[in-house]
């Protein structure tokens, strides 16, 4: 390519124009003091009249597919409402929502999983829950508090789940082991299964990302630790308790009781079905349904036992929990109807109905008293877990810090880094990343 003088001059001009327009854009910049969350209390009170107008809902994950069944229910009492639903791929949800908030082209209602709520709320693009819409105490605190920022609640909880130990009945019987109840018995559980011929008795979450960090957090809490101070201001990643938890967790892998390479999330069922794993530690309740999907209906009942998460050396309990809540963007054009639908979804009837439709478990405590929710071992295990649920750090930078922790965990597992050094490094990086305040 030969650049002629006039062309290069034009290139320079173009560059100058770009810089000039950037400068113009930047001239209006500058932070205007502390632009924290909106003031206290919620927005306008929501009355009991039927909802009207059009509600635009964005959904993510598999949950969206069955949601129209609930729209039909809602319309029985709210005939004048039209609900339009758009399914957004889960992996793109935050960036799409972020873009929509920037452009002001938001839907009227969304739901967000617990893991991404802090990041979304940090955009400042959501309405506080109106006063009196729902009663905070009616929900499991672990789900309600997840969307509370500076004492203002933004989300109406929709559903909740708690992880558990899911293990193969037959393999456990063959090895002569009972459900693990604490750290010591989990180790013996693994060792005996290994001796009986299971290659990697325990399935841990080994993707070394923010979800691996979340699993470590549960172990840390079982040991009296945690990643952040109670006021959500100071990272406490390299505390003695956390280091011990990581030593325990990575020790399971180093001693061959768990594989450092898998299962990855989606092949969890196949590893346990083939007997390469005998137990999923900290597994979500959906796996039980997935076992049936893969191996035929009734397989899970016949072959799997369930147990609540083990307790730590001093008897501390902690369980990984998650779920989803409803959020109304500030620029929503029909906030009234949006909140009414969120309220409708959190009534005991709707909570039970949704469980029957999709097997997502109620976030509303009262819904668990319904006869439909009794006598099911999965439900009982989840309910017990919800009582001891662990909150993720409620800061906008959690996904990034979680990723850093995940990377450091990988160094312990695959390299020669000690648990202490790894968490010291994670702490250092987390401090430089901050809490987004």
């Amino acid at each position: 390519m030969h650049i002629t003088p006039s062309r290069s001059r034009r290139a320079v001009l173009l560059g100058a124009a770009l810089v000039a327009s950037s400068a113009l854009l930047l001239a209006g910049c500058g932070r205007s003091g502390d632009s924290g969350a909106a003031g206290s209390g919620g927005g306008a009170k929501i009355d009991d009249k039927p909802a009207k107008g059009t509600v635009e809902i964005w959904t993510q994950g598999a949950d969206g597919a069955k949601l129209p069944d609930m729209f039909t229910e809602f319309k029985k009492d709210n005939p004048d409402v039209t609900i339009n639903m758009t399914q957004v791929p889960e992996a793109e949800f935050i960036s799409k929502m972020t873009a929509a908030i920037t452009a002001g082209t938001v839907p009227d209602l969304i739901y967000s999983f617990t893991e991404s709520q802090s990041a979304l709320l940090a955009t400042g693009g959501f309405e506080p829950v109106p006063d009196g819409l729902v009663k905070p105490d009616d929900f499991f605190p672990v789900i309600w508090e997840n969307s509370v920022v500076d004492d203002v609640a933004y989300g109406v909880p929709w559903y909740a789940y708690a992880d558990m130990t899911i293990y193969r009945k037959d393999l456990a019987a063959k090895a002569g082991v009972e459900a693990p109840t604490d750290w010591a018995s989990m180790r013996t559980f693994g060792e005996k299964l290994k001796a009986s011929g299971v290659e990697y008795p325990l399935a841990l979450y080994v993707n070394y990302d923010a979800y691996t960090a979340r699993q470590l957090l549960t172990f840390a809490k079982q040991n009296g630790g945690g990643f952040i101070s109670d006021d959500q201001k100071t990272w406490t990643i390299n505390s003695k308790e956390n280091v011990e938890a990581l030593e325990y967790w990575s020790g399971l892998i180093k001693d061959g009781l768990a594989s450092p390479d898998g299962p990855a999330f989606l092949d969890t069922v196949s590893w346990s079905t083939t007997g390469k794993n005998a137990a999923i530690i900290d597994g979500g309740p959906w796996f039980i349904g997935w076992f049936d999907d893969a191996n035929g209906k009734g397989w899970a009942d016949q072959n799997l036992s369930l147990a609540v998460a083990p307790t730590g050396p001093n008897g501390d309990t902690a369980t990984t929990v998650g779920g989803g809540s409803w959020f109304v963007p500030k620029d929503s054009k029909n906030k009234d109807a949006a909140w009414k639908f969120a309220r409708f979804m959190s009534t005991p009837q709707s909570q039970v109905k949704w469980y029957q439709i999709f097997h997502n478990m109620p976030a509303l405590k009262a819904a668990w008293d319904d006869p439909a929710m009794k006598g099911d071992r999965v439900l009982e295990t989840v309910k017990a877990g919800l009582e001891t649920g662990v909150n993720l750090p409620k800061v906008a930078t959690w996904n990034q810090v979680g990723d850093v922790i995940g990377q450091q965990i990988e160094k312990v597992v695959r390299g020669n880094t000690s648990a202490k050094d790894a968490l010291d490094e994670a702490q250092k990086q987390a401090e430089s990343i901050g809490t987004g305040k």
Partner: protein
Amino acid sequence: MTSTATRALVTPEAPSRRLRGTRRAHEGSRAEAVTAWTFLAPFLVLFALFTGIPAVFALSASLTDMTARDIRDPFGVNFTGFEAFFKIIGNPGFQSAFLNTVMFVVLCVPLSMGLGFALALMLNSAIRRLRTFFRAAAYVPVITNIVAAAVIWQYAFSITGPVNNSLGALGLPQPNWLGDPGWAITTVVMMGVWRTAGTCMILFLAGLQAVPEEIYEAASTDGAGRWRTLWSITLPLLRPTTLLVTVLQTVSFLNIFEEPYLLTKGGPLGSTKSIALWVYEQFGFGNISASMAGSVLLLLLVGIVAIVQFRMLRPKH
């Protein structure tokens, strides 16, 4: 566009005292220019909307301390000059992504071009039967959906996957293709080469077919052997093609994203994280200024490398 046309556009009111002929010629080129701009307009509009404006935004955002928390008020950020650039240049994660990217380029570009050239030579002269079939077969990876391909690669190269099962059956060692840093790089490079060798092949094939047959005949009359012909005739005449392919491949591997993202998520231990993947992650974490600064640096890198290559491989007169 000629310079007369530009002037005609810039100064539509031409001085009145002109010779008729010149004037008419002028009007003609003016009409030509209008037509040209009309045809260019759709492209320019799309370019401005989807490349120009985002580029200005990226450049601007890289000079601020913008994060995802500022998106409702994008102008309420502080101008920080080149701070974001200095910060990421000093960031160990970015440094390792930079080195990984350089490594992908150094490994993938020669390998994919070598393979593509070899395939092109074979298809051009050696293979007579089923030529169309082989040509299509070599090109299939290019048009295969990368996500579908990556899922299959991930399955095939997992520790208990078909590749290791076959190796085991042959009594060979079974590496941890995706879990060991060195092997993960190998796997990503293999996939990158597999996916782009077809493009190189097609371009080389086109170049080879443009070489006049007479030159080969003359060479063979002069007693040149096969290697001598390749070295002294084919390669020099393919210089423009080689330049094009080198630049295209280098640019595409500098921007490498899909292979590591889909196969390894940049792991294990960050060994396959490229600059593009790092930028993408930072955006996901809400560090908008850092991610924009990273993409501006990547763009500069691509530009510099392309210019250097064009200069080095420019045809010798």
